[in-house]
């Protein structure tokens, strides 16, 4: 079994190298783990609660005080400032002391009593979108709640209960599949695989690129009886095993914070998807190194390609209506395919048949990038002019 021997010798050689190089070991072990932990810690608060807002109450009426009480009762908000004027409140917003301003103009209560309808204003910070929109949503709910109450009492008293009816159509917003609207679950579900696939890609560029840079590619392949494919696979295996382990741990963490158990077959599909994703990025790393024959350039390419995955995946921002470049680029990322699979299996409990397509896409990346990368890397390994480039 010369292939197996070649594979094992290459894997052993890589492990020896890692143990002798603390910084390469760090980039494949504790640094990615530390980054995952930092992110898990950052979002451990779950939902944003008690976001500070300011109230500018120029009406100073029973109604306006009722509204302030309603806002204070909202768990998502904290009325931390009572400003005397709108400009004072906006200064607080620029300082980031508050994320939204509720402005109750003078005469609001009188307008309600006279004509049946008054207006209040909600100014929210759209530059800090998550916080600003969360505050705006809660302000909206608080105002709606008070509006219903007012309609029932004051307007009813003036015009008589017979005149009363609710708005003819209500639209209820709900979400499928992530009912708690947990940002922690949502964001970590994107960030964990984003960190891991990038770290895997960077580590693999290092591993493949190093042999060309240091002109050690011949001795390495000789040790592996000049069997290129087993040697490449053997080199990749330590990283593949490590990152798959981190991937499984991060999946378990996602299941844990969601609080509901997960079926074994769903978990198995996700682990398979993670494994394929790491294989795909290893194959792409091989391709980058083989194409550029220069470790630093390959690292730059990997950074551009895998470092911007989250922006282009369409998971944070829809790609409908995006220019063709953006949509095509998104499809060219294994991360996009993996996120589709993760959404289906982790959130929606889809059938296996639905998930075959993203799995096949991942496999296609592995095969295409792997074959082309291996052929080109093989050429570079025989061409001394490709060695030692910095």
């Amino acid at each position, binding site marked *: 079994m010369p292939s197996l021997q070649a594979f094992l010798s290459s894997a052993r050689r890589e492990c020896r190298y890692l143990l002798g190089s603390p910084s390469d070991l760090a980039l494949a072990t504790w640094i990615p783990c530390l980054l995952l932990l930092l992110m898990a810690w950052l979002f451990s608060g779950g939902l944003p609660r008690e976001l500070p807002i300011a109230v500018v109450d120029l009406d100073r009426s029973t109604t306006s005080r009722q509204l302030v009480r309603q806002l204070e009762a909202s768990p998502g908000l904290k009325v931390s400032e009572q400003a005397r004027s709108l400009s004072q409140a906006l200064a607080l917003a620029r300082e980031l002391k508050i994320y939204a301003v509720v402005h109750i103009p003078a005469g609001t209560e009188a307008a309600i009593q006279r004509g049946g309808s008054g207006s209040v204003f909600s100014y929210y910070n759209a530059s800090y979108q998550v916080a600003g929109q969360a505050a705006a949503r809660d302000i909206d709910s608080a105002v709606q709640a008070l509006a219903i109450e007012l309609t029932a009492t004051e307007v009813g008293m003036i015009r008589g209960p017979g005149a009363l009816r609710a*708005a003819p159509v209500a639209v209820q917003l709900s979400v499928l599949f992530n009912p708690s609207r947990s940002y922690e679950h949502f964001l970590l579900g994107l960030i964990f695989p984003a960190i891991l696939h990038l770290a895997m890609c960077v580590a693999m560029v290092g591993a493949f690129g190093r042999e060309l840079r240091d002109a050690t590619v011949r001795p390495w392949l000789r040790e592996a009886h000049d069997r290129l494919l087993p040697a490449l696979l053997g080199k990749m295996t330590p990283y593949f095993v490590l990152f798959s382990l981190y991937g499984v741990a991060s999946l378990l963490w996602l299941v844990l914070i969601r609080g509901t158990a997960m079926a074994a077959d769903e978990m198995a599909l996700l682990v398979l998807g993670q494994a394929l994703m790491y294989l795909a990025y290893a194959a792409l790393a091989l391709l980058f190194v083989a194409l550029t024959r220069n470790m630093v350039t390959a690292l730059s390419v990997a950074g551009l390609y895998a470092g911007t995955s989250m922006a282009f995946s369409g998971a944070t921002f829809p790609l409908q209506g995006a220019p063709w470049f953006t949509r095509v680029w998104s499809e060219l990322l294994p991360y996009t395919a993996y996120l589709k699979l993760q959404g289906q299996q982790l959130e929606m409990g889809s059938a296996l048949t639905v998930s075959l397509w993203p799995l096949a896409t991942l496999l296609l990346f592995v095969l295409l990038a792997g074959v082309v990368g291996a052929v080109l890397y093989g050429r570079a390994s025989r061409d001394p002019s490709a060695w030692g480039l910095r």
Partner: protein
Amino acid sequence: MNRFSESFSQTLKTIFSDRVALVTLVGAVILYSFFYPAAYRHQVAGQLPLVVVDQDHSPMSRELQRKLTALRAVHVLGVVGSMEQARQLVERGEVEAVLLIPANFQRDILRVEQGGLALFGNGTLLSRAGLSMQGAAQAIRAFAQEAALSQAQFAGLTAGPALQLIERPLFNTALGYGSAIVPGVAALIVQQTLLVGLAVVAATRRERQGKLQVSLPALCGIASAFAMIGMFSLLYFSGFVFWFQDYPRGGNLIGLLLAGALFIASVVSFALFFGSFFRTRERAFQLLTITSLPMFFLSNLSWPVEASPEYLVRIAQLLPSTPGINAMVKLNQMGARLAEVSGELTNMALLTVLYGALAIRRYRRREDQFSQRSPLD
């Protein structure tokens, strides 16, 4: 002064003759400045693709469907018979939302009760669901009311809601997603390219000379050369790129220049200190590539600081990007006055002093007394 200017020009020469340093400090900045905003070129989340589940089959529900096709906020891909079918379409990613018109929709409206519609978004895409669904819901509500009103006027007088809420976004008034993210990312790109560029130059020097001993004036010369390049990148983003992408900008120009200079100063001190630990040119690339994403989230631009653990917020303040990103967004986009970013300014000034002092210590240490330790190779 002589050693300062000599070192300054020598550093610039080194950068411009080192392909990698040049590609990082200039090439990467320009490449990312076009590439990154491309992900958000269309800016506002429009056209939520949805299917309709019509359980009412009434003239009113059909009228509503017809009107929906005219809405800009949604893109109706069809009508399906059941929620189960709609759910499968969501699972396959073909649609992102489902509008359910329940049975008795028309009857309820004609009976002067409230007709309820339910809009289901895909919760696995939370920020997308949030952004596009609110717009879609508002549009559907308006159209549905109009449709219902015109057909239900005989049913009696309609009292409007007693209290109306008028929402106004501040600062990023077009509600662009790119304009909320990219300015923060831009400051991070400036920081990371400076860090890599400086680390590459320092590591090369170390590879060739084996040690990093630099006199104080020479160190200042190196720092000034990098600060100048960093300032160019920062102004290129804050001026040209944000103008080209038509992001909100120029809120407080003087403040931006001042805070920008302080940000670059803190980044250069940070880079001088950390760059001294790298012994090979490639190492900085590897480390900074994988830490960029966490650094961005640690800046709390996309996640409210109030919802973050307090210790972590303090730790994040040790990174120049944390005050830098916030100060840049507040001054350039939100038009904050200098006093309104005093926290960030103090943070950056302290980091400049802290890392500057550490860097001076590091580069002055005698080789024969202490061999320079370098945990990163």
